C-alpha cells in the first residue's frame, strides 16, 4: 500500500512537471510558430535596416506572414541582405511585391511590411524582392527636419 501511494504521488509529480513544460511551450512561448512547415524564403536588400533583428515579424496588411530568418551584409553593394522566411500558405505573393521596414509604435520593435504588386507570377523560394524601402532612422528624420526648418528661416 505504501509503495502504491509512493508511485501515485511520484506519477502526479512527474505529470505536473510535464504539464508545466507543456504550458510553457504552448501558452508562454512561440512554440506554435515552429510547428508550421518551413515555407519558402525570399531575399530583400535594404539600404538601412535600423533595428531589425532575426525573427522579427514579416507582415502583409498587418497579418503576420513570416519572419526574418537571416541578416547579412552584401560585400559588394554594402546593403543589408535580409532573408525572409514566409509561411507556405501565403504562396500567392506577386513577384513585384515591395518590402518596407516599419516601426511598431514610436519606440516599438521594427518589422517588415510587404505590399503586393500587380504581377501575374508568384514569388518562389530564393527569389529577390527588388522594391524595398529602408528603415526610417529617427535621428536622421529629426536632423532633416531641423535642417529644413533652419533653411526656411
Amino acid at each position, binding site marked *: 500500500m505504501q*509503495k502504491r501511494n*509512493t*508511485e501515485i*504521488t*511520484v506519477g*502526479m*509529480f*512527474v505529470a*505536473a*512537471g*510535464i*504539464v*508545466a*513544460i507543456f*504550458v*510553457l*511551450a504552448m*501558452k*508562454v*512561448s*512561440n*512554440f*506554435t*510558430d*515552429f510547428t508550421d512547415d518551413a515555407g519558402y524564403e525570399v531575399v530583400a536588400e535594404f539600404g538601412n535596416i535600423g533595428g531589425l533583428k532575426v*525573427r522579427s*515579424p514579416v507582415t502583409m496588411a498587418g497579418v503576420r506572414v513570416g519572419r526574418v530568418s537571416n541578416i547579412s551584409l552584401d560585400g559588394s553593394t554594402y546593403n543589408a541582405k535580409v532573408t525572409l522566411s514566409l509561411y507556405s500558405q501565403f504562396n500567392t505573393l506577386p513577384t513585384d511585391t515591395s518590402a518596407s521596414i516599419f516601426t511598431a509604435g514610436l519606440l516599438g520593435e521594427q518589422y517588415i511590411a510587404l505590399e503586393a504588386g500587380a504581377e501575374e507570377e508568384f514569388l518562389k523560394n530564393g527569389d529577390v524582392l527588388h522594391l524595398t524601402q529602408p528603415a526610417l532612422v529617427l535621428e536622421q528624420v529629426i536632423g532633416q527636419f531641423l535642417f529644413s526648418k533652419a533653411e526656411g528661416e
Partner: protein
Amino acid sequence: MIDFIRSLGRWGLDTLQRLGSGHLFLWYMVKGIPEVLLRFSLVIQQLQSVGVRSVMIILVSGLFVGMVLGLQGYNTLVDFGAEESLGVLVSLSLVRELGPVVSALLFAGRAGSALTAEIGLMKSTEQLSGMEMMAVDPIRRIIAPRFVAGIISMPLLAAIFSAVGIFGGFIVGYGLLGVDDGAFWSQMQVKTDWYDDVLNGVIKSIVFGVVVTWIALFEGYDASPTSEGVGRATTRTVVHSAFAILGLDFVLTALMFGEI
C-alpha cells in the same frame, strides 16, 4: 614563514585531493546509472523524497516570486506606458533566470541538505560499510538512485516554478493592476522563444540538478563520520551548491544568451 607556505601547500593538496575524489565519485555514480535504470523502483522511492516533497516549497515560492515580479515590473513599466509588456518581463525573467536558479537554490536547501544528512548518517552509523561487507556496492545501491532522482526532479521543479510564477504575475497584473490580459499573453508569446528561452532554461535546470545532487551526495559520502562532521557537511552542501549554481548560471547565461 615556512609554516605559512606549508599550510598553503597542505590546503592546496587537500583541495586537489577532494576535487579528485569528487570527480571519481561522479564517475562511479555515472557508471552506476544503467544498472539503476533497470531497477527503477529505487529511483521512484527517491523521487518521492527528493522531488515530490519539494513541490510545495516550489509552488509557494514560485507564486510569490511571480507576483512580486508583476508588481515591481508594473511600477517600472507604467512610467513608459508599456505596462502591456509585463507579460514579457515576467515570462523572460522567470523562464531564463529565476525559474532555474531560484528553484535550484531551494532544491539545494530542501533536498540537497536532506540527502547529505541522510548519506552522512548512513556513513557514521556504518550502514555503508555494512553494505560493502555484504558485497553490495553502496554507490550503486544508495547513491546512484538518488543522483538519477535529483537529475529528473530538478527540471520538472523548475518548470513548475516558472509556470506558477507566470500565473502569479498574471494574477497581479490582470487582477490587481488591470493590465489587459490579451496583450499580456500575446506579447509574452511573441517575445518568448521556445528554443532560446524555454529550452535553454530547461538545460540550465538539468545542469543545476546534476551539480546540486552531485555536491550533496559527495559531501554526505565524504563527511567525517561524527555528528559534527555530518552537520558541517550539510552546511557545506548548501553553501557550495549556492556558489556552484550562481557561478554556473553566469557561465551558462554567457554561453546561451550573451553574444560572445
